[in-house]
């Protein structure tokens, strides 16, 4: 089965690290949405519908879409919210265009850092009887996954260290003048501070459109959605084998089937993968069929995923460079869209005709998504 109408990305605004104190969250969201619209050459009057994604606990509000409605142009407009994950706003926006009932969608996600403790906010997402008392936050869950992988896959630690070096090198190119001081983040054994980054405030917006609208407006910088897949793991870590990512494998199959991709390892010019930790990136290589786990050490060691490698991964520097926690997934999708549109800036790939974006979020990457974007309307 495929899209009734194939959506394309015609505008993006990625603001992965925002120095707060100058603008309120409402203003940050407004600024980001307006930048995406300007990138698409549109105004809010051209937008038929909006989907936003945010985390109520991070925002300190019971229904945070309410506050954002005005900022994104939702007043007197069709607006919905997917608080499960930032990438789900992209997914629903794409489905709405694909249904043929909307010509355009603005999708927006954000992640502030004003909450006194992100870890405590995340801990409220653990079930109150078993996991919350551990205490468990998302990084702890990632660390459990890392420990399981180190145990199960020889060379995983070495490969993780290589990914850290690669993504930090990419980050220095993408952001030669850092927006703010960063550096080592929090640690949970075996995830070291060098393997994470300090959470920052960020926001991302994308404009999706139907082919007839794109043709009518003569938009040329289009990243067509050739494939999209998303899936979830169970919520209980004890019910999962953390060395595997069956939900991502399922999401990848869905996306690849839609994009008619049969050899994923050789199908893409580049990829953005959610590296909440380098182990997340490794596991995604396997589940996305980019690199089998027995080859992790060799391929990360020979630079296959570096800037000049066979498949550059995270030219943006990834989450390791900027970590606006909740919206990192949609940022990965927007990064690939910009690469395909030739608008990625200093980290632009020379020939990005088709790219793969991976979004993962939640405890040990519970939610998974894969998005194939390309210059051609149909793969």
């Amino acid at each position, binding site marked *: 089965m495929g899209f009734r109408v194939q959506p394309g990305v015609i505008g993006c605004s990625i603001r992965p690290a925002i120095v707060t104190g100058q603008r309120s969250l409402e203003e940050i969201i407004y600024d980001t949405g307006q930048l995406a619209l300007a990138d698409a050459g549109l105004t809010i009057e051209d937008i038929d519908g909006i989907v936003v994604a945010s985390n109520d606990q991070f925002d300190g509000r019971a229904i945070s879409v309410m506050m954002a409605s005005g900022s994104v142009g939702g007043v007197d407009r069709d607006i919905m919210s997917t*608080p499960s994950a930032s990438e789900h706003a992209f997914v629903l926006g794409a489905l709405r265009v694909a249904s043929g009932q909307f010509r355009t969608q603005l999708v927006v996600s954000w992640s502030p850092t004003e909450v006194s403790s992100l870890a405590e906010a*995340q801990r409220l997402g653990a079930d109150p009887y078993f996991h919350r008392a551990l205490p468990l936050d998302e990084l702890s869950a990632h660390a459990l996954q890392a420990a399981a992988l180190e145990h199960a896959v020889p060379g995983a630690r070495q490969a993780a260290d290589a990914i850290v070096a690669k993504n930090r090198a990419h980050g220095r190119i993408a952001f030669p003048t850092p927006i703010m001081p960063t550096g080592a983040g929090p640690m949970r054994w075996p995830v070291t501070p060098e393997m994470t980054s300090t959470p920052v405030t960020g926001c991302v917006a994308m404009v999706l459109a139907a082919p007839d609208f794109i043709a009518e407006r003569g938009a040329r910088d289009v990243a067509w959605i050739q494939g999209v897949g998303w899936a979830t793991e169970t*919520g209980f870590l004890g019910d999962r084998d953390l060395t595997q990512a069956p939900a991502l494998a*399922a999401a990848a199959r869905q996306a690849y089937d839609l994009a008619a991709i049969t050899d994923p390892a050789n199908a893409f010019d580049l990829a953005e993968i959610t590296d909440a930790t380098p182990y997340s990136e490794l596991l995604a290589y396997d589940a996305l069929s980019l690199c089998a786990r027995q080859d992790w050490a060799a391929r990360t060691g020979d630079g296959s995923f570096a800037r000049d490698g066979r498949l550059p991964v995270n030219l943006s520097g990834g989450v390791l460079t900027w970590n606006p926690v909740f919206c990192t997934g949609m940022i990965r999708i927007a990064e690939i869209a910009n690469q395909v549109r030739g608008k990625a800036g200093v980290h632009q790939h020379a020939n990005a005709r088709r790219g793969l974006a991976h979004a993962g979020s939640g405890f040990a990457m519970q939610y998974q998504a894969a998005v194939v974007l390309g210059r051609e309307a149909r793969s």
Partner: protein
Amino acid sequence: MSSDRVGIVGIGQSAFRSRRDDASYPDLVREAVVLAMHDAKMELDAIQAVVYSLSPDAMVGIGNAERLGVDAVGGRSKPFLRINTGGATGISSVAAAYYHVASGMFDVVLTAGADKVGECGDSQTVLNKIWDPSYERPLPLGTINMLAMSGVRYMQRYGMTEEDMARVAVKNRRHASLNPNAHLRKVVTIDDVMTSRYISWPIKLLDCCPQSSGGAAMVLASERFIRDNNLDAVWITGVGHAAETYWMGDRMGNNPTAEHADAYALGRSFEKSYRMAGITDPAKQVHVAELYAPFSNTEYHSIDAARLVARPGDSVPRLRDGEFELGGRIPVNPSGGTLCTNAIAVTAMARVAEVALQVWGRAGDHQAKGARLGIASGNGGDHQIFGTMVIEA
């Protein structure tokens, strides 16, 4: 590619109660899913994607509580996402499931959720947190005094009285007495309502919805799948959403962006749904309505916004005449509506489910005779985000 239409093939609803000490939150979701799958005569393996319906996390005391409901909906390794538009979440979730199917990507999609409002402690304390922390939260606003202000304004503009409000409660309680799933099923009189204590003038205790616990689920499918599998279905022919300003102050000043007495964006949402369904004269074409009205006064501006009457305010005399009773011209909330059952995460889904049952001819003792086309609505946030649907046999 799927055919154009999207059908409803299965419905499950809990018997809503104040408390469900026998069931955890995921248990309640599962209860509704089992009922819906049984109704659709399908196994969970047939479900290709899931839309999870959950409004404020704080009602169940778990952040992103949808993550703990994955197994309850059979969602493991399947496409799964959650919707939250406040009280509109249930109808927004059905709409999102609709877009899943209408996109051509899926043939069979489940939407499901549950709430334990009756066990959250105090829903108004939670709902105060929907407002901006600096300006409107400290007033302190809650959803009751917010809509009491709408009621006062409606009285001033259209002449609604407190007795008129009581008539809505009496009507809906009578309807709920016929609905085994309704939470408040005791019939009340106008005197009962008028002598109940004020909660926030002019809203009295019996003008208020309860805090309910329970779940709801629906199975949607493509027309092709329905035809190929010889399933019975009713059809979603109109879908819409629209929002108003977040700020209460912007609805009550000298130059309001939308009049707080009315439900401006609900009307805009209905315009979209009607246009999609080809409805030009809803007062004549609509047979039955389930309109989200958690307080008795808000049913009037919902009827107005749905254009079931000629002009705003006409709903008051028309309701006095019994036009919106079961057996009347257009029965409104024959299930008893939100006024008698409010498990917030799925309340607006229940509106869609109940209208679907009506046009299917399966509503039981609260069936509106001859209903073939119905409408449903949901309101979320601070009377801010509205979803609407048209359902046809």
